[in-house]
């Protein structure tokens, strides 16, 4: 009767908007991985001995490990010898000191993505440590941060300029042998971001990094370490887009957060890597280890994520609540469309007394996607009076997708309170028709319904990010009306 179903087909066929490749000559290592490659990466980056030793330890451990198979995701085996483990923009040896020195092509890439770096930084007052193919090429607002005593730089810079801090905290939350992908990352990580907020300092601006995978067939192994000392507070924003390509790209990042007494870290992510085409060809494999440790009393770590990209997502941002009265939070929106597979969730490990955690997970599935929530709430014997609240909601669009929920709980202290709520709903024909009858297009109606579903999570995002997240959601779900 109407052309709705045709429109839906056309919209579903819509191509990934951020698909393009910047032609910048890469300084890459040939594919393959052995101790020589690990040493070469370390050498290229002029690293101190402790870091080389650390990498080699990780590599040796990794060789004894097997790729995990427990996640609800399916993919062809990855040939780890067919991946190049290092790629840097040409001018990496003499890194630019200001935007004028940055390769104009690179700046053009950001512009295409709708991220005019300098403008954005100036207007929004956000310092941007832009990671492009593993090496930082532009860092802004350093002076203002330096004045406050905040260190915000690329991981390489941190190794050069603050080796003691790096040595003190690196691997203390995610040890080298933590899991297969974390071990791999520890061995070959190329660059990433480092933040240190000294005691009593509230970081004067939100810290933001845009990651972008570029050179073909180069796995990305980012390493991020954020430390908030006693009474410090910082909000960190991470957002990603990637160019279109046919081959699968492996991404295995590690993020470590450390919060000391009374410190707060808020880590927000909008993830929009290439998810593969409508037939499930291509797309990023995203195997990420993110973990924060509330090491001190009354500390707080909050993860907020909006995940719309990647062919495969394997990601469980977690909190280890060691300090008494510490707080962990996880707010997540995970969208899977077409043939995307997402297995994501969180772990809340309660160790300290009166520790509290909140988990709010919103999964949206469309097309033929598989969307899994996997969460662990663990209350140790020592966690007197610990409390957890978990809410997992799934929204299905159409009849060919699936949502799975695996909530695990281990409670070893009888004084703990653990609550779990879960729901699964379908975007109702009734809701859709109601909006259509008010003159609202199917596309806008779906956006509205989905945004409503995700509202509690978006509320946790910094303002500018919330807008971006909402836009991303619209693009990811265009036409996915069941």
């Amino acid at each position: 009767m109407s052309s709705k179903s045709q429109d839906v087909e056309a919209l579903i066929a819509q191509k990934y908007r951020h698909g393009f490749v910047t032609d910048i000559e890469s300084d890459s290592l040939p594919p393959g991985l052995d101790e020589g490659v690990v040493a070469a990466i370390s050498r290229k980056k002029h690293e101190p001995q402790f870091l080389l030793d650390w990498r080699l330890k990780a590599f040796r451990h990794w060789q004894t490990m097997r790729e995990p198979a427990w996640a609800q995701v399916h993919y062809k085996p990855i040939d780890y010898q067919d991946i190049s483990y290092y790629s840097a923009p040409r001018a990496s040896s003499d890194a630019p000191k200001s935007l004028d020195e940055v390769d104009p092509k690179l700046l053009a890439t950001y512009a295409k993505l709708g991220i005019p770096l300098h403008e954005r930084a100036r207007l929004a007052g956000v310092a941007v440590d832009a990671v492009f193919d593993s090496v930082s090429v532009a860092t802004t607002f350093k002076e203002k941060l330096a004045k406050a005593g905040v260190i915000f730089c690329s991981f390489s810079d941190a190794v050069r300029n603050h080796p003691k801090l790096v040595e003190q905290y690196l691997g203390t939350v995610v040890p080298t042998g933590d899991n297969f992908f974390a071990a791999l990352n520890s061995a070959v990580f190329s660059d990433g971001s480092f933040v240190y907020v000294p005691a009593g300092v509230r970081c004067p601006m939100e810290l933001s990094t845009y990651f972008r995978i570029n050179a073909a067939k180069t796995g990305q192994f980012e390493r991020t370490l954020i430390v908030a000392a006693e009474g410090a507070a910082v909000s960190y924003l991470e957002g990603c887009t990637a160019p279109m390509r046919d081959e699968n790209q492996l991404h295995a990042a590690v993020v470590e957060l450390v919060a000391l007494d009374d410190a707060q870290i808020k880590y927000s992510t909008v993830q929009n890597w290439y998810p593969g085409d409508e037939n499930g060809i291509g797309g990023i494999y995203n195997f990420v280890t993110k973990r924060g440790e509330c090491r001190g009393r009354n500390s707080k770590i909050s993860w907020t994520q909006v995940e719309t990209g990647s062919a495969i997502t394997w990601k469980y941002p977690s909190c280890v609540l060691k300090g008494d009265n510490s707080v962990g939070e996880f707010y997540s929106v995970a969208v899977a469309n077409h043939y995307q597979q997402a297995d994501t969730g969180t772990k809340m490990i309660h160790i300290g007394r009166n520790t509290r955690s909140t988990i709010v997970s919103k999964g949206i599935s469309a097309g033929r996607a598989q969307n899994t929530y996997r969460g662990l709430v663990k209350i140790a014997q020592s966690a007197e009076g610990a409390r957890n609240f978990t809410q997992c909601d799934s929204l299905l669009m159409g009849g060919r997708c699936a949502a799975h929920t695996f909530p695990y709980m281990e409670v070893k202290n009888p004084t703990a309170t653990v609550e779990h709520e879960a729901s699964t709903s379908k975007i109702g024909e009734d809701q859709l028709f109601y909006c259509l009858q008010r003159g609202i297009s199917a596309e806008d109606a779906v956006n509205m319904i989905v945004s409503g579903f995700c509202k509690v999570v978006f509320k946790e995002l910094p303002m500018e990010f919330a807008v971006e997240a909402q836009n991303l959601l619209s693009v990811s779900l265009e036409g996915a009306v069941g």
Partner: protein
Amino acid sequence: MYFWGRELLNIVNLSARVAGKTILNGIDLSVNAGEVHAIMGPNGSGKSTLAQVLAGREDYDVTGGSAKFEGRDLLAMAPEERARAGLFLGFQYPVEIPGVNNVYLLKAALNAKRKAAGEPEVDAYEFLALIKQKMKFMGMSESFLTRGVNEGFSGGEKKRNEILQMLVLEPRLAILDETDSGLDIDALKIVAKGINSLRDPARAIVLVTHYQRLLDYIVPDQVHVLSGGRILKSGDKSLALELENRGYDWVQGSSTA
């Protein structure tokens, strides 16, 4: 431009079925600008189906006949096009949309309509002023501004909200599906006041109702009795009163006799 007596809705021999079952069985109906029509009938007679088919619900297969709205082929238009062209359906069971702000939805609806008509969109301030005025008229508290669409509304609040939407959207043709059901007498009066305020020479209203009660407050120009997917009898407002006294069996009996 629009004069009393101009035909807004023209339905000829309309048939429709849902899930293979014929519900509408040759409906003929003509509604002119300036008129209020009441469509009455027992449960299962096809009243709601008629409303849904006219609004473009996909679950219903139109198997024959035609429906024209201001001369345009209504059945060829998508539901949202019908809405933007000025056809409003007041739902019998307004749906809840959690997390979506009531005002946000209504503003989007108004702007979709204005955009389609080539008019500029209203901004947030203009809209707020407009909706506050209409809410006052409908005796609604300001908490409606911050609540989700029909989220946690009582039955009466939902119906009132439908009329509020109608007043903001100012449709050319409003089809109100059992807007009176589940209302207490005070709420019924307010809803009727809202509906009556929309009566004007350029518009038409079709009231789908089970009971005569609503028609005490909104006096129709014509009353139709629907049964078995067909209009069995049409008349003026006295027909509704007669139905009230004699029951639907009277019409059904007289048609088969």
